[in-house]
């Protein structure tokens, strides 16, 4: 219903009864010949913009058929179509660009992290080299450190001996005084 109301002059296949066909057949043939000649002459020239309603032409088995009347294309339809496809391409490109941007973000993050790890690697290489040198120098100092340990042990033993001697001398002094009193 709505389509027929708004459709106007388009898409209507008319079936004309056979009675009208006979009267119109003569006119149809003359018109068809005129149309053919017009078509030949106007192939290169631009056609005027007007609703083209093809006249009924076929006459098969007493039933006359007519072709549908079509509306002329809008003058800017090509531009509109191009615009539509361009915008659709931009939209699809945008959908895919989102994923690409995520990948780029991850790539940048990975690059920065790898740079950090390279710096840390350099630092750790320096530390290991320095510690190796320190270990070697500590190994060269080891005899002196052993001597220091020996000296400390000997001093400790000497201190113990001195305490014992001090204690013994005090006992001896006490005994001497006791004997002297007698």
């Amino acid at each position, binding site marked *: *219903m*709505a*389509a*027929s109301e708004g*459709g106007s002059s*388009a*898409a209507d296949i008319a079936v004309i009864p056979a009675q009208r066909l006979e009267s119109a057949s003569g006119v149809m043939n003359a018109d068809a010949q005129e149309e053919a000649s017009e078509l030949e002459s106007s192939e290169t020239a631009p056609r005027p913009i007007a609703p083209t309603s093809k006249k009924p032409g076929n006459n098969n088995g007493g039933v006359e058929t007519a072709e*549908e009347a*079509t*509306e002329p294309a809008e003058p800017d339809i090509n531009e509109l179509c191009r615009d*539509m496809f361009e915008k*659709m391409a931009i*939209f*699809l490109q945008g*959908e*895919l660009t*989102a*994923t690409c941007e*995520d*990948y780029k*973000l*991850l790539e940048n*993050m*990975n690059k920065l*992290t790898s740079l*950090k*790890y390279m*710096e*840390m690697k350099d*630092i*750790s290489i*320096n*530390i290991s080299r*320095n*510690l190796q*040198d*320190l270990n070697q*120098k*500590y190994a060269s*100092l080891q005899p*002196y450190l052993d001597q220091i340990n020996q000296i400390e042990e000997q001093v400790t033993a000497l201190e113990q001996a001195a305490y014992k001697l001090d204690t013994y001398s005090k006992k001896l002094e006490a005994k001497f005084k006791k004997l002297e009193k007698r």
Partner: protein
Amino acid sequence: MAVPEAQARFGQSVKGLLSEKVGSCSGDVIALTRQVLKGSRSQELLGQAARNMVLQEDAILHSEDSLRKMSIITTHLQYQQEAIQKNVEHSRNLQDQLRHSLK
């Protein structure tokens, strides 16, 4: 299937049908693109990867800080070792002097 489609097309102009078809095709293309992207789960996986990396960054910074402190400590140890070496050199001279004095 063909009958309802024919009934739907009845009464509509060619232009209308064409525009409907173009619209449905473009909608299908868009839906297909979205489905392909959704099916690949790229958004989820990449988002999860980014979140994990952000969580790891704290540990990375802490490790870097520790390494820098370790390098400073190593430098201080080197200074101490050089000072000890100098003192050991002095102690050799002292030993010689002591030996001479004890004689």
